[in-house]
C-alpha cells in the first residue's frame, strides 16, 4: 500500500474525503525528459517533508481528511484507452463534489482530464504551462505534452497562460481560437512592470474551472530539473500569487500537477511540486469551507 499524500494516515476510501489525490503516472513520450511515470511516487514521498499548515491560505487542508487513491493503471495500447481512466476519475470525483488533485505524469494528462470534464457539461480549463501545448500532431501522436492543451480546447473552453515557448503552429491556433492568455513575460513581477492580472488568465472561462498546472511554467531557478532549461519562467511567488487570484475569481473543481521528470538528482523539484500541491489543496479548502478552521 503506497503512503498517502501529505498525511501519515489515509482515509479508508474517497467517500468521506472532501478532496482526493490521484497519482497519474502517465509517461508515454519522455517529454520534456524521461521519468514522469516516477513523479507521483516522488512527489508523495517529498510531501512527508512538507509542514501542512499553509500560513498564506490560513488553513491545514489535511484537517478534514484526504484520500490518496491508488495510482491509475494505464494501458497505452491506444490513445483512447490510455486517456480513459484519467477522464473517468475526474468525472467521478467532480460529480461527487470532491476536489480532485491529480499528480502527474506528463502534461498529456490534460487530454484525459478534459474528457471527463466535457462529460460533466460545465467548466473550463485554466492552463498554466511553459510551452504552449497547441500543436496538432507530434511524432505521429495526437496526445502528447505539446498537443494536450489543444486536445482539451476541442472539448471545452481553455485559456493557456504563463508560457514562454510556442511553435508557430501552436501560436497561430491559440490566437485563432482566442485561448492564449498572458505569457510568462507578462505575468512575471519585476520593478517598473505591472504584471498581468488574474482576470486575463481566466478571461472567457465559465465560473467553474479545472486548474491544469504544468510545472514547466516555473523558471529553472525555482524548479531546477532536467528538461526545464528555458529562461524566463515564473518565479514561485509569481505562480502562487496567480493561483490565489484564480481561486478568488473562479470556483475550482479540481486540479492537476504535471511535468515533473525524475530522477532529477535532487530533492528540491519533487518538494516544490508537493508544496504546490499543498497550496492548491489549501486554497481549495478555503474556498469550500470559508471561515471554518477545519478542525475535526
Amino acid at each position: 500500500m503506497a503512503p498517502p499524500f501529505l498525511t501519515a494516515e489515509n482515509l479508508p476510501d474517497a467517500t468521506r474525503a472532501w478532496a482526493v489525490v490521484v497519482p497519474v503516472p502517465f509517461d508515454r513520450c519522455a517529454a520534456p525528459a524521461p521519468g514522469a511515470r516516477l513523479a507521483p511516487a516522488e512527489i508523495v514521498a517529498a510531501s512527508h517533508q512538507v509542514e501542512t499548515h499553509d500560513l498564506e491560505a490560513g488553513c491545514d487542508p489535511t484537517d478534514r481528511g484526504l484520500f490518496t487513491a491508488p495510482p491509475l493503471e494505464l494501458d497505452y495500447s491506444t490513445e483512447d484507452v490510455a486517456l480513459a481512466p484519467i477522464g473517468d476519475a475526474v468525472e467521478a470525483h467532480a460529480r461527487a463534489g470532491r476536489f480532485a488533485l491529480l499528480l502527474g505524469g506528463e502534461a498529456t494528462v490534460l487530454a484525459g482530464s478534459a474528457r471527463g470534464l466535457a462529460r460533466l457539461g460545465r467548466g473550463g480549463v485554466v492552463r498554466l504551462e511553459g510551452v504552449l501545448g497547441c500543436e496538432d500532431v507530434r511524432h505521429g501522436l495526437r496526445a502528447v505534452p505539446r498537443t494536450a492543451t489543444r486536445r482539451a480546447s476541442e472539448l471545452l473552453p481553455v485559456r493557456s497562460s504563463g508560457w514562454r515557448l510556442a511553435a508557430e503552429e501552436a501560436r497561430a491556433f491559440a490566437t485563432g481560437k482566442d485561448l492564449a492568455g498572458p505569457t510568462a513575460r507578462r505575468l512575471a513581477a519585476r520593478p517598473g512592470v505591472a504584471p498581468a492580472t488574474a482576470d486575463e488568465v481566466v478571461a472567457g472561462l465559465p465560473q467553474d474551472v479545472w486548474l491544469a498546472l504544468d510545472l514547466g511554467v516555473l523558471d529553472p531557478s525555482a524548479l531546477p530539473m532536467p528538461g526545464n532549461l528555458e529562461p524566463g519562467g515564473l518565479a514561485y511567488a509569481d505562480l502562487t500569487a496567480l493561483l490565489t487570484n484564480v481561486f478568488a475569481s473562479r470556483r475550482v473543481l479540481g486540479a492537476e500537477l504535471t511535468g515533473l521528470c525524475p530522477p532529477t538528482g535532487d530533492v528540491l523539484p519533487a518538494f516544490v511540486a508537493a508544496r504546490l500541491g499543498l497550496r492548491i489543496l489549501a486554497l481549495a479548502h478555503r474556498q469550500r469551507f470559508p471561515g471554518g478552521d477545519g478542525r475535526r
Partner: protein
Amino acid sequence: MNGGGAESSGRTCGFVASPYEATASFVAGCAFGPEAIATELERAAHTDLRPGFAQVDDWTWVEAHHRSVVVPDTMRRDVESWTRALLVAGRLPILVGGEHTVTAGALAAFDDPSSITVVQFDAHADLRQAYEGTPWNHACAMRRALDRGHPLVQLGIRSAVREEIGEVYGVGADGSSGLLLRCGPPPARLLTRSGLRDRGLDEVLDGIGARIYVTIDLDVLDPGCAPGVGTPEPDGLSFWELLDALERILGGRTLAGADVVELCPARDDGRTARLAARLTAFLGTA
C-alpha cells in the same frame, strides 16, 4: 585556526563552530557546514563585498566540540562555555552551525534573556514543543528561546504546522490575517515571507529591543541563491533582501551575538558556503 592580525580599536568577534547534527530530518550533512564556511571565510576574507562590509582582520575560530557529539546537553554545554569565554574576552560571539538546535547553546550564555530580542530569519517557524521524540530537535529551536524568556521576532517564515502556531500565537491564529502574528509575554512576532515582501519591516521594528541576537537559518534564502540547505523551501529571500533587512534591524541597536546555521554542503555547489561566509563576516563586524 586563528586569523591573527593586529588588534583593531573596535570590538572584535570570535567564531564558535558547532558541527552538531542529530535531528536533520530531510537531507543530512549540516555537520560539515562549519568546515565549509571556515574554508570560504579564509578564501574570501580579503575582498570586501560592498560598502558596509568590513574586513574581518582579527578573528578567532574555535571548535566547540567534535561532530561526533550528538548529545544535546553536551553540545549546549560546550557552545555555552565557549560563548561565555568570548563574552568575557569582550568579543562578539558568532556561532556557526550545525543544525538550528545549536542556537540554544549560545543563548544559554546570556543571563538576561528578557533584555535580548532574538531576531530569527528562517523558512520554518521552529516553534514545536517537541519533534520526533525530543525537545532538542531543530524544529523546536525558537520554542526553546521563548522558554528562556527571550522576546522573539520571526521573519521570512513560510512553513509551519498548526499546533505550533496555535500554541504560541493563540488558537485560531492562522497567519492569513495580514500575515503578521503577535503574542506575549514574552513578546513574539511572526512576519511571513509574503508579509515581509508586501508590508516590510515597519510593524515589527517596535518589537525589537535595543540588544539583539540574530539567528540566520540559511533556508530563509531562496533555494535559487542558497541551495545548500537540508530543508529547502521555495520562495525565499534574495541575498540583498536579507542584507537590507539585517542593516535596518541592526541600525541603532547592539548586536549581542549571532549565528548562521543549517548549511548542508551535500546539496551545495559552493555558493551557499560562500554566502554563509559573507553573512558570518558581516555579522562579525556589525
